[in-house]
Each structure stands twice: as C-alpha cells, then as structure tokens.
C-alpha cells in the first residue's frame, strides 16, 4: 500500500514539476541531429541552472521520458527528505557521489549499470553549475570513461539555451522566458582517440549547437 502510494505521489509530482516547467519556459525542442525516437542514448548538456535536467526531461516525448534517467549528485540530492524523494523516486536519478574520498561506488560503473538495464541517461559533463562568463566549464572525464566502457551507445549533445536567464543562480522567482533545447548528432569514441581529444571534440559538438541570436 505505502510503496504504491509513494509511487503514485512520485508520478503526480513528476507531472506537476513537468507542467510547471512547461508553463514557465514553453520549452522548444529542436531535433537537429537526431529524431525523437525511443533509442538508447546518453544526452549530455550544458549546466547553468538547477532546472536543466527537469527541462531536458520535459522536452523529451513521453515514451522517451519514461526510460530516461538523469545522472545527479548524491551529495546534493540526499541532503533532505524532499530532495531525496524528488531525486530518487520522481526522476529515478542515478545518484553518483562527486567526492572521490567519500564514495563507495564508482560513478562510471553506476552509469554503465543503468545503461545495461536499458535506460537512457541525462548527463552534465561539466560536473557543476556554470555561473562563469565562459559558455562551458572544462568537461570532467566521466563522459570519456562512459564512452569507453559502453562504446555502442549514442552520446547526444544537447544545448539548453536561456535557462540561466529564466533562473539566474541565487534568484528565487523564475522569469517565464522561452527556452530552446537543441539536440545534435550523436558522438562515439573512435578507436585510439585520447581522453583529451575526445573531450575536446565533445565540447566542440556541444558548443556548435549554441544558438547565435540568444545567449
């Protein structure tokens, strides 16, 4: 009874958060490099706001959304019961620990396990929110290690535009501006590509999706 109730509450909460995100930002998905078909993918996006993964998740068509799990920081999402409920049960996040000294599980192994179960993933390779003036922070190596462990999976760059203006860091009330999400062509690790070369290529692929008119 109780688990069923929690699952129901999680579904309703997810729908409510998604509806709210739609109302606030009228997100527009531009499928530039791929089609919105239920194919296993790792979506990797720029990270400028806490709403990023909610918006990406909302922009996916419902059948894709159900099989897509965000990768999120355990050290953020397990700090309060509400966050834990939203992180674990509403979004079914793959919670990884960003602190190497504290973690008991390898993040790449956790992500690979989620892929092996058939899920798609939402990943922010910058590893933290970008509030600098640079369009992107240097990527962490997780994306490379994931591409190496599961070379067959499509790595899809997604540029999320304008969300940092909707909800700048430190503000409480969002401004309901339109956000666009541009989905690029999938990337794969080529044989003998070095870590740095691959991460540079992934960074370029993501930056190339940044719209010119909006910042």
């Amino acid at each position, binding site marked *: 009874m109780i688990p069923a109730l929690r699952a129901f509450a999680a579904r309703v909460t997810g729908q409510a958060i998604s509806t709210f995100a739609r109302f606030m930002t*009228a997100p*527009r998905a531009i499928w530039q490099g791929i089609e919105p078909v239920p194919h296993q993918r790792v979506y990797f996006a720029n990270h400028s706001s806490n709403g990023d993964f909610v918006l990406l998740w909302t922009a996916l068509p419902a059948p894709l959304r159900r099989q897509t799990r965000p990768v999120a920081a355990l050290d953020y999402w397990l700090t309060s019961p509400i966050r834990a409920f939203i992180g674990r049960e509403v979004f079914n996040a793959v919670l990884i620990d960003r602190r190497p000294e504290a973690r008991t599980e390898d993040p790449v192994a956790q992500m690979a396990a989620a892929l092996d179960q058939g899920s798609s993933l939402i990943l922010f390779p910058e590893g933290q929110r970008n509030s600098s003036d640079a369009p992107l922070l240097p990527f962490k190596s997780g994306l490379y290690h994931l591409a190496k462990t599961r070379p067959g999976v499509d790595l899809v760059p997604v540029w999320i535009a*304008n969300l940092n*203006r909707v909800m*700048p860091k430190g*503000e409480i*009330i969002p*401004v*309901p*501006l*339109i956000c666009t999400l541009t989905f690029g062509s999938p990337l794969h690790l080529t044989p003998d590509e070095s870590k740095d070369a691959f991460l540079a290529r992934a960074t370029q692929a993501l930056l190339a999706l940044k719209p*010119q*008119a*909006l910042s």
Partner: protein
Amino acid sequence: MTSPHLLWLLSGVGTILIVASIIGEILRLRLSPAGENPVIENLTARINAWWVMVICLALAFIAGKPGVVLLFALCSFAALREFLTLTTHNRADHWSLVACFFLILPLQYWFLATDWYGMYSIFIPVYAFLLLPVVSALRGSTKDFLIRVSETQWALMICVYCASHVPALLYLQIPGFEGRNVILIAYLIFVVQLSDVMQYVWGKLVGRTKVAPNLSPSKTWEGLIGGALTASAVGTALWWMTPFSPLQAAGMCLLITLMGFFGGLVMSAIKRDRGIKDWGHLIAGHGGFLDRLDSVIFAAPIFFHVTRWVWSTT
C-alpha cells in the same frame, strides 16, 4: 453575452473554415498524400490552428466578460514571453522582468476587469514607465541601461498595454448598443485577420512591388491594397451588426486594416533585427502568439479610442 449577430458572425467564420478545411484536404490528398509538400503541410497546420483559435475565442465570448479578459491576459502573457525572450537584459533586470509578468500584467487586466478606465489607460505608460527602471537601477548595473529599460517598456506597451485594449472594448457604453459590445471585439479581430489573410492571398496572386524590401519580402503594395480593400468591403457589408453607419464602418475598416498592416511591418522589423523568422512556436503553422496578434495589437487601441470618442458615453 451571445447575441444573434455574434452567432451570425461565428457561423460565417465557421463556414469559411469548413470550406478552407475541405479545400486544404483536397490539396493535401492531391499534392502531399504522404506529407512531403511543406507548403501544403503548413497550410493544413494553419487551418487547424485557426479552428483552435476561433473555438477558444467563441468559448471566451460565451463565458462573458471574465472569459474574454482572461483569454487576453493569457495571450498577453504568451506574447510578453516571446518578446522579452529576445530583448536585451542582464541579471540586474531579474526583478523588473519578474514584475512585468507577475505584477504589471495581472494588475493591468485587473484594472480592466474592474472597469477603472482612469487607471488602465495610463498604468503602463506612466507608473510602469517611471517605476520599473528604478528596480533595475537599484541593482547597480549601468551597462546598456537605456537599451535595457526601453526594450522592456516596449515589450510591456505592445504585449500588455495595447493587447488589453481588445477586451477593453467590452466596457464602452454605446447608447442603443447595450449588451452587444462583444460584437466590437469579434468585428475588430475578424476584419483585421481577414485583411492579413487576404493580403497574403493577393500578394501571392498579383504581388510585384515590395513595400519594404529590406524588411519583409512578402509584403507588397498589391497585397496591401487588395487585402485591405477586400477586408474593408466585407467589414462594410457587416455594418448592420455594429454601431456604425455603412460609411463610418468603411472608414473604421480602412483605419484598422491599415494599422494592422503597420503592426505587421513594425514587428517584422524587430524580428529582422534579431535574426529570427517567427516569434515563437506554440501556434503550429503560424509561429508564435505575436506572429498572429501583431496586427490586432496595433489596431486595437486606435479602434478603441476612436469608438470611445465618437460613440461611447463613458
């Protein structure tokens, strides 16, 4: 709220849409059975969107004053979002932008719903104009200050102030026309939108001379004259449902179709400057709310004030 004249107008529009849908469907079966012709697909999407817009408007009319005010408040919200997405602002403007959406817009429509003419006719040009820059100034950023505050004010004037003059027509008091004000709204929207459609049709058929080649390749003198005259002729023929005489109706129609044309022109200039084709994506086939409303937004305040000066007792 419903009157026989409104039913006449709505069934007329319904008939036009049925005919358009049948023609669209025939064209689709002939030219684009598998959805391969983008022009036909866009036409189908446009006609379908017209159905949705007309049904929303009809439902609002049935719901009466609160329905119409609410519908236009929501349209203002969507339009303001499209506009402010493209304007210059930085982090220092966060609170002014929040105020535009969640304070100024609701207040404008609240003043309207309570029929406080003295307030809603000056609220944005006076109070918002003077107080909003203060909010941005207090945050300390001076970079592009005048550009930022001007563009925000412009967004409010177009998307909230001017747009709110459509439902404001409900509050005019015209002797002999009591209880039928909703006709004024239906008439304004019908004539202006018909002019838009007919400008497009005439432009496609005989359009040669561009009005503003740098601005919009689709706006031609032939289209403008043909569209404005066709819509004005239809509008004049409908004079019996308005407070106007046939001659007055013709004058009003020419006025609002011309203003509608100017609206399209000015809003195209802004789009061109910002390097975009459409304001938004929410109305399939048409683009954004502003793409569909630009002409009505420019025509509404003039139509409202001329009607008020000449015919209304308030």
